[in-house]
């Protein structure tokens, strides 16, 4: 007994020895550092950066009017005046692509926002409360997952009526199950941690536990999923627009541009190729960044 007391170096405040070196920031700074080292992810981020730049400054960047073409200049091949050529109505493809960037960003953000909001809510309810709530929600999610996404989106747009707004809603709904599943899985694992138990012991209500202790610790997989889903959402919305159920002409939406010009694939391949390329690059950008984020947020990959 005495010996233990002797070892004790009293309870005076101990200054942290490594005061100067503990500056290495939290999870987010570390993640950002790791992300910067990943060249492929940086490439993805650059593509997305360009996309956002175009979206914001479209009116200043676009050399021509995206919606009203000059008919006598229709189906012009790429030239100095029209860098990426013109479509069948004489509209500059480059200007339309630049203006389309804003629409794509909108589609990505709004539809993923919808999916995120409802998916997270369902996932938290099902993961945190478990039992029959979990069983109910997850079976619903299973049913939704059983439909091919584009088919389900088609059905929803058909019910709501074709417009860009409804296409976004449809794409959002279609992506809810993925978020619900991922959020549920991470809530399940965070729920069992000691700090959640501790928060119960200090008298937190369920709402406080969910918002202060559970959700902040589930953010990493949610962010990765959101980034990856923006890519697919843009693709799905383009698909709907291509089928005439999304953006209505003359809106310069990339999928709609493909649909408009697909009849002239032989005469004016540029008017089909470049919007397609824009979709591909955008989706690629989000996928690369998403993959990079996943690697950067995974603590097991710490050097």
């Amino acid at each position: 007994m005495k010996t233990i007391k002797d070892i004790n170096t009293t309870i005076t405040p101990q200054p942290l020895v490594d005061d100067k070196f503990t500056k290495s920031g939290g999870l987010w700074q570390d993640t950002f550092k790791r992300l910067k080292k990943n060249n492929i992810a940086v490439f993805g981020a650059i593509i997305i950066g360009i996309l956002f730049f175009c979206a914001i400054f479209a009116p200043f960047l676009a050399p021509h009017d995206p919606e009203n073409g000059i008919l006598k200049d229709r189906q012009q091949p790429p030239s100095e005046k029209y860098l990426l050529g013109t479509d069948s109505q004489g509209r500059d493809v480059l200007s339309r692509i630049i203006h389309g960037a804003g629409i794509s960003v909108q589609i990505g953000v709004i539809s993923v926002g919808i999916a995120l909001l409802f998916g997270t809510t369902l996932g938290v309810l099902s993961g945190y409360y478990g039992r029959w709530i979990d069983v109910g929600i997850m079976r619903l999610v299973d049913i939704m997952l059983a439909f091919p996404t584009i088919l389900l989106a088609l059905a929803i747009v058909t019910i709501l009526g074709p417009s860009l707004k409804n296409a976004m809603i449809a794409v959002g709904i279609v992506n809810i199950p993925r978020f619900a599943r991922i959020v549920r899985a991470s809530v399940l694992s965070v729920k069992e941690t000691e700090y959640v138990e501790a928060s119960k012991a200090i008298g937190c209500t369920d709402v406080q536990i969910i918002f202060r202790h559970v959700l902040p610790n589930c953010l990493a997989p949610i962010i990765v999923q959101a980034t990856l889903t923006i890519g697919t959402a843009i693709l799905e919305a383009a698909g709907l627009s291509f089928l005439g159920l999304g953006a209505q002409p003359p809106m310069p939406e990339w999928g709609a541009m493909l649909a408009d010009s697909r009849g002239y694939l032989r005469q004016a391949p540029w008017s089909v190729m470049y919007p397609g390329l824009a979709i591909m690059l955008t989706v690629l950008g989000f996928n690369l960044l998403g993959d990079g984020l996943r690697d950067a947020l995974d603590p097991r990959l710490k050097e």
Partner: protein
Amino acid sequence: MSGFILEVKNLIKYFPITKGIISKPVGAVKAVDDISFSINKGETLGLVGESGCGKSTTGRCILRLLEPTSGQILFNGQDIAKLDSLKMRLLRKDIQIIFQDPYASLNPRLTVGDMIAEPLRNFGIGTRKTQEKRVQELLEIVGLSPYHTSRYPHEFSGGQRQRIGIARALSVNPKLIVCDEPVSALDVSIQAQVINLLKDLQKEFSLTLLFIAHDLSVVKHISNRVAVMYLGRIVELADYKNLYREPMHPYSQALFSAIPIPNPRLKKNRILLEGDVPSPINPPSGCNFHTRCPQAIEICRHQKPVLKEHKTKHLVSCHNLNFQQRRCTGTD
């Protein structure tokens, strides 16, 4: 009523084992199997036993972090086990817990200040200003500095984290603190610091502690009375002096004979138990220690022994205590 702050009566916690999609119960892990004990105001009750014997489960049932299967938990005469969730939430102010793993029990996304202030906010104690002051006070009490409030847990060492945990538990002035192996994840030198901190705090704030541990010397240092658990039951409960000097239950004897003595010349009679701890899913009939007990007799196989007072304030649950005396007189 009486000097007891906490009385546990016939506490049982079974974890059901379910099978198939309809969750048909096929058995139960009998983690805590009918235990009773009480803690006096201001004392420290040590709870020892090997891994998986139900120590932590007992602690968690007392806080209702786990719902007890049956039994009474009387805190100041009020049965906790029957409180609804709202009343229980309010009562949590009086009972706090310090967790085993300081790396897992602190939310990595909250600053130390927020963490320690959280219980105060939850119970609406004080204004923002007084809460901040209280946090700084608490940090000093547990031996950290007030400027640590804006830091995150990952910037601290294990011992410092445990101090944060202690500060958080103390913030609401609890009457009873359940210490769930608070030092087993720490280095030995840090262990001593934290243990002595707990002792000092106990004196200063007249706390009652339920100290769960598997380190017998730590328990000896801090406890007034010690309960020994084996496979979900208490086998012996006594004053620490009596228990450490002359354990009566054969399991306690084996357990205490295993404490290393820092003297290489001293030869010790170690009682080695044979076999493993039986599964708590299917514990042995009768006394659940009879499969490994060196002095088991016929009755041990059929009848559960009861925790009885064999000497003053020395409770043992064994059918064959006379064996000990007989053996001693025999060798004489």
